[in-house]
């Protein structure tokens, strides 16, 4: 890999050959990386619970098995939206992953791409809401309401956390230049990182915020009526989010994913695995919250923490105190 990237520095364009290789490899690579990441989640959860856990190819077996089952569409459901929703969700997550991986590989970005990324991150949740409301089932309707409330809860703290980063890096809207600083090494940056970690936990649908897809409460709520290949698309969407969202957090808060040397790549992978392990540990040590507890958590506690973080960031920016 080093030979492919030599001859270009930070901010220069990639050579034609590495460009072609990148665009061929990125979509299958993202999906495979998502399956590996979901195996890491299940294996680490198993080790934390003192058991063995699934074999390495288990997520692949799950997806292949689902492709072989029949697709049942509810009689009263809206067929078009029911079938289109998982595809829209997967498309949104794949575009987000492509964008982030492109920025990582080429170390260049465009102005305002952090806004595009925030916009694309809403698409999977929106697709879940649309798909479950097209399901014509009372359990799915409860799941829809809960997912909508959850999205309203965590979107604002997530955006505010990124505003903190934008203030700390001096008003840059370009992910490649943001990724060159490590805002987590300051007080406001650390607060924003912790809050955004919990918001990403909610977006991924992990405990304590897996309220919408709560298996035992509402019989799998949002994706209850899905089966077969459509369910496989939902599962692949959720595993691909496991690639895109921690990578986004690494680029915004932890100082990016450099590709210039082997050491930089190893450090980047280490940061990504650190974020993933934090998400897994939070997932395994917490019970599920109720939707009103979750909304109160995001609006009141995260809101206050973020207002403090924004204030500290602005004071630090005004007076040149970098550790605030």
């Amino acid at each position, binding site marked *: 890999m080093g030979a492919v990237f030599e001859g270009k520095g930070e901010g220069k364009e990639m050579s034609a050959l590495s460009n072609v290789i990148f665009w061929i490899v990125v979509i299958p690579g993202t999906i495979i990386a998502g399956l590996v990441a979901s195996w890491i989640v299940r294996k680490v959860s198993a080790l934390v619970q*003192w058991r063995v856990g699934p074999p390495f190819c*288990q997520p692949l077996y799950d997806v292949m098995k689902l492709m*072989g089952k029949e697709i049942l569409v509810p009689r009263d459901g809206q067929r078009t939206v029911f079938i289109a929703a998982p595809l829209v969700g997967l498309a949104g997550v794949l575009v987000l992953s492509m964008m982030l991986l492109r920025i990582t590989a080429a170390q260049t970005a465009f102005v305002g791409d952090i806004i595009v990324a925030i916009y694309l991150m809403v698409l999977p949740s929106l697709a879940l809401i649309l798909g479950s409301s097209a399901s014509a089932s009372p359990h799915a309707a409860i799941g829809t309401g809960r997912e909508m409330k959850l999205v309203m809860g965590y979107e604002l703290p997530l955006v505010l956390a990124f505003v903190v980063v934008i203030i700390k890096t001096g008003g840059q809207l370009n992910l490649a230049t943001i990724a060159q600083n490590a805002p987590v090494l300051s007080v406001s940056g650390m607060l924003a990182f912790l809050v955004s970690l919990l918001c990403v936990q909610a977006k991924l649908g992990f405990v304590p915020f897996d309220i919408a897809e709560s298996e035992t409460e509402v019989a799998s709520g949002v994706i209850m009526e899905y089966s077969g290949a459509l369910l496989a698309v939902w599962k692949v969407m959720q595993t691909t989010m496991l690639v895109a969202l921690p990578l986004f957090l690494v680029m915004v808060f932890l100082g990016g994913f450099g590709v210039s040397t082997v050491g930089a790549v190893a450090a980047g992978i280490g940061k990504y695995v650190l974020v993933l392990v934090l998400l897994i540990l939070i997932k395994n040590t917490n019970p599920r919250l109720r939707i009103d507890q979750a909304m109160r958590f995001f609006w009141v506690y995260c809101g206050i923490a973020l207002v403090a973080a924004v204030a500290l960031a602005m004071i630090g920016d005004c007076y040149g105190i970098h550790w605030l």
Partner: protein
Amino acid sequence: MKALKKSVWVFHVNTGACNNCDIEIVNLLTPKFDVERFGIRLVGSPRHADALLVTGVGTRQAAKRLQEVYRQTAKPCVVFCMGACAGGTGIFEGAYHVAGPVDKIIKEVDPNAIIAYVPGCPPKPEAMISGVVKALAAI
């Protein structure tokens, strides 16, 4: 179909059991027996399931619901009759509330259903694991 043997998602249906078999099934899904090694996972919706773990003798009220749940399970699927009651009415033979053992109820909906029996009152979790593995090897 080869992947079906490596990844079995189960859904638990109680058609009027005394809860003994249900407790053993829930024991089975705890970290102590670690059925995730075999790819077995508990799911919350029959549409996601590959195997229905049916307990209890088929009562008259539960018979229609069991048939509806079976129709909603995405095929191909396997029905596991856990326990003596599900296998063949057990100690409730000839009682007023029995609508037939579980395999008779399922075969009314689908004569070609794949049904496996795990006897016991209640069957031990190890017996259930052995039954599931043997049934999957025989498909």
